[in-house]
């Protein structure tokens, strides 16, 4: 039989290769803070920018998983992360009240804007949020929603309610993507529709499109559009395994003068993305 010897040789090679790989995985790991956060802090590059500074200042590594605020809070509830950086104040307060988190502290804010096609078929430019949403609903212009229980999605639902409008979830002009913010803006652009986005992600989108962005900011600066980020330590009394020492280190650092200054200086296309507002 041809090549009878080669499979055996190949098998030994395979085992050797596997042993090498397993060996690498067992190498010692440095202490790291595990954080759950929202897509907006990751997509904009803010965390990539902050993490090395945190490492220099404290000697600890920052690791994060970026998801919607809903899943981030759930990961905290299940004791799977040490600390949260999220932006859904109502859900956060409930999270803390239920005993899942401690020491909720404001970190920074950016604001939400309503974007849409430059032609603005519903005529919302420069209006208040309530007027704009009413006009979109009356015109049945496409409105694209995150639909993923993220902080942005929660904010959008609150805006419909605060504008005394029913949630248009079943309307044919209401499109729920269930995906991240940049994907959702791109869907809005494809559908010639409107969407609600945080300004940070919009600036990123605009810079990617290099001056040819089909979606433009139409409504901004209205008080309900403020987007507050907070840091919350997962409650060590409920979760014995979380590393609260590290979580606390991060919470103190990110709300302290060094990180606050770094956040202020973080810019994309020359535009600041976040305004620090920690009171510590």
């Amino acid at each position, binding site marked *: 039989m041809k090549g009878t010897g*080669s499979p055996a040789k190949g098998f030994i090679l395979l085992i050797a290769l596997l042993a090498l790989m397993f060996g690498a995985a067992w190498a010692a790991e440095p202490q790291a803070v595990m954080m759950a956060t929202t897509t907006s802090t990751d997509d904009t590059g803010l965390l990539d920018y902050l993490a090395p500074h945190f490492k220099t200042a404290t000697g600890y590594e920052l690791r994060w998983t970026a998801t919607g605020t809903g899943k981030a809070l759930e990961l905290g509830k299940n004791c799977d992360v040490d600390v949260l950086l999220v932006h859904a104040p109502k859900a956060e307060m409930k999270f803390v009240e239920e005993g899942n988190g401690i020491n909720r502290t404001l970190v920074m804010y950016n604001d939400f804007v309503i974007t849409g096609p430059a032609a603005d078929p519903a005529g919302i430019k420069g209006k208040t949020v309530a007027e704009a949403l009413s006009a979109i609903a009356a015109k049945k212009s496409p409105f694209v929603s995150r639909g993923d229980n993220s902080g942005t999605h929660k904010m959008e639902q609150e805006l419909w309610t605060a504008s005394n409008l029913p949630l248009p979830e079943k309307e044919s002009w209401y499109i729920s993507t269930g995906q991240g913010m940049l994907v959702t803006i791109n869907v809005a652009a494809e559908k010639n529709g409107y969407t609600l986005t945080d300004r940070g992600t919009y600036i990123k989108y605009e810079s990617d499109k290099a001056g040819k962005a089909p979606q433009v900011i139409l409504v901004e600066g209205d008080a309900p559009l403020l987007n507050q980020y907070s840091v919350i330590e997962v409650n060590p009394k409920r979760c014995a395994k979380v590393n609260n020492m590290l979580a606390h280190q991060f919470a103190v650092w990110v709300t302290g003068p060094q990180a606050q200054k770094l956040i202020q200086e973080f810019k994309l296309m020359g535009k600041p993305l976040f305004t620090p507002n920690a009171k510590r």
Partner: protein
Amino acid sequence: MDFLYHGLLEAIRLLLSGDPETYSAVAATLKVSSYAMAASLLMGIPLGFVLGHLRFPGRRQARLAVDTLLSLPTVFIGLMVYAFISRQGPLGHMGLLFTLPGIAIGQTLLALPVVIALTATAVESMDANLRVTLRSLGANRRQLMRATLWEARHGILAAALNAYGRVMTEVGISMMVGGNIKWHTRTITTAIALETNKGQFAMGIALGLILLLIAFGVTAAMSLLRGK
């Protein structure tokens, strides 16, 4: 559409410049898929062989169950594994969440039915004639089993490649269990998902091409192993 062209250029640039983020994701993908393949082959080949070679009561039902599990959605496996290895779950004390071995557990569950079902099919498809021939040559049960396994080797290799393809390309388990953590559990597929979310389509295409390149390498190595 120019991001397709830029993606190709970007892929070449990433590979040639030794971009550390890309290589970290490549290493994570290779490691985790190797763990998963080793585990699923060690368990799957014997089970598949038993399922295809032996005749026992409940065999058809077992076969049906395995074939059904071929359609296990990856996000569902991800959620199930998360439920077990979350700190609140029964295996929470092992600290497997957000680690490569954690992802490997999920990918093993993904690959196992593929290995079992295809191994069983390979063994079944040659059994009929071989059994008669070997029996007439005076082979005993043990020799019959070994000869069958040897003759089915190409089918088993195909099963392994098929499973490897599913494991390398899945994103649901890696995302849910691994958490897409930079330098640690970011695999090529979760990196593609992230870049797409960021609107960096060219980067996503580039990473996709790198994944294909690795798949080509593995397939080529396997076909060399086969001798033809």
